[in-house]
């Protein structure tokens, strides 16, 4: 009986000694992996968000630059409008006031697409 008890206790201690560090390592590993994975997910989410924001900003930048160019050319538009009022279209025969420069150009380009030559 005594011998059995001694064997049981010794075996238990031996197992405990050898298993304990492994268990600690295993648990620590799992914890570290979960923390790392969570962090990765967070980083991924933040990257996606930042990417979306960057795209939006690029769009806004493009719109702003376009708007800016348009503002800069607003003054020259005045000249263009004055100029446009004097135009005639030999193709359409419309009166100068009706046509305007841009309409003339568009008309010219429509005719270009419609022509068969």
């Amino acid at each position: 009986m005594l011998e059995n008890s001694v064997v049981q206790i010794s075996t238990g201690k031996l197992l405990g000694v050898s298993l304990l560090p492994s268990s600690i390592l295993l648990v620590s590993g799992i914890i570290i992996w979960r923390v790392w994975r969570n962090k990765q997910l967070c980083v991924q989410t933040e990257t996606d968000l930042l990417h979306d924001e960057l795209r939006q900003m690029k769009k806004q930048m493009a719109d702003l630059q376009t708007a800016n160019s348009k503002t800069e050319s607003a003054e020259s538009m005045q000249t263009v409008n004055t100029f446009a009022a004097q135009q005639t279209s030999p193709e359409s025969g419309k009166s100068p006031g009706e046509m305007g420069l841009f309409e003339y150009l568009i008309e010219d380009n429509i005719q270009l697409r419609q022509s068969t030559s």
Partner: protein
Amino acid sequence: MTTSTIYHIGIDLGTSQSSIVTSTGKRLSTKTCVGYPKDVISQKRLNKNHLLGEEALKNRLSLDLVWPLAEGVIRDDEVSKEATRLVLKDLIQNTLPELEKDDKVYATIGVPALASVQDKKTIINITKDFIDKILIVSEPFAVAYGIDRFDECLIVDIGAGTTDLCRMSGSIPGEDDQRSLTEAGNFLDQAITDAIHEQYPEVQLTPQIIRGIKEKHGYVSDNNDPAIVSLTKKGQPGSYDITEILHKSCLKLSDAIGQAVQSLVADFDPDFQEILRHNIIVAGGGSRLMGIDKAIEKSLDSYGGGKASCIQDVEFCGANGCLKMCQEMPENYWDKI
């Protein structure tokens, strides 16, 4: 949520050089050429199906070079059409990297003053898959538009393939107001090549060497420093004096332009001829030729004299005008095409 953006671009599609200016403030200029690998070795070395612009020129020994435009218009063969498509697509991709699938590209492209309907239609057809709306306009008119010159003035746009002249008189220029000459940059290159070979028969020349000489020494004024260039003869380098050769060749170009200017002045309303003579604007790569403005003025001596000035932003003046037109075109007009 996806938002669609409209990008406006102005393109000057030139025989030698093409330029683009975008509504996002980007600008780019490139040689209008495409190089295809000559064989499997060059294909392996370059690891690309084609190279464009300066990159193609740098690797020209391994490539079959295609210059798709001649006299300002796309050559009438499939290889040239495809090469032009690649050049235009590349210009847009490089200047609009932010372009996404849902975005739209509205473009205005400048073509020689008297380009044919077929030439213009070719441009529309080859750009179908990457330009949503396209407007084709006369190149010298685009230059005038870019600098707000609608009043009496004469635009002389000296390109590589053509020299385009456009008389502005406060209205849209008609065919009578425009001239398109083949005496342009490439014509001058050929004249210089022929003249050098005539005097120094065995000298080795390439289009690149000639272009370099022209850009560095080309002049039409009466006085200039001697043009001594280093050339090879059967592989042996030597110095050659080409001052006179260069002058005479350059005069062939300036004389042809002078005559065209004279004819546009001569058949203009006599009351406004003087104003026209004193408002000549020289644009395009050829305006870099030393003394070209003075030579044009000189051609008008017997007409009472004139005043010519070279435009500042030579490389992009056409593309700038195209972009301006493109941006100012009302949206509802774009819908019509």
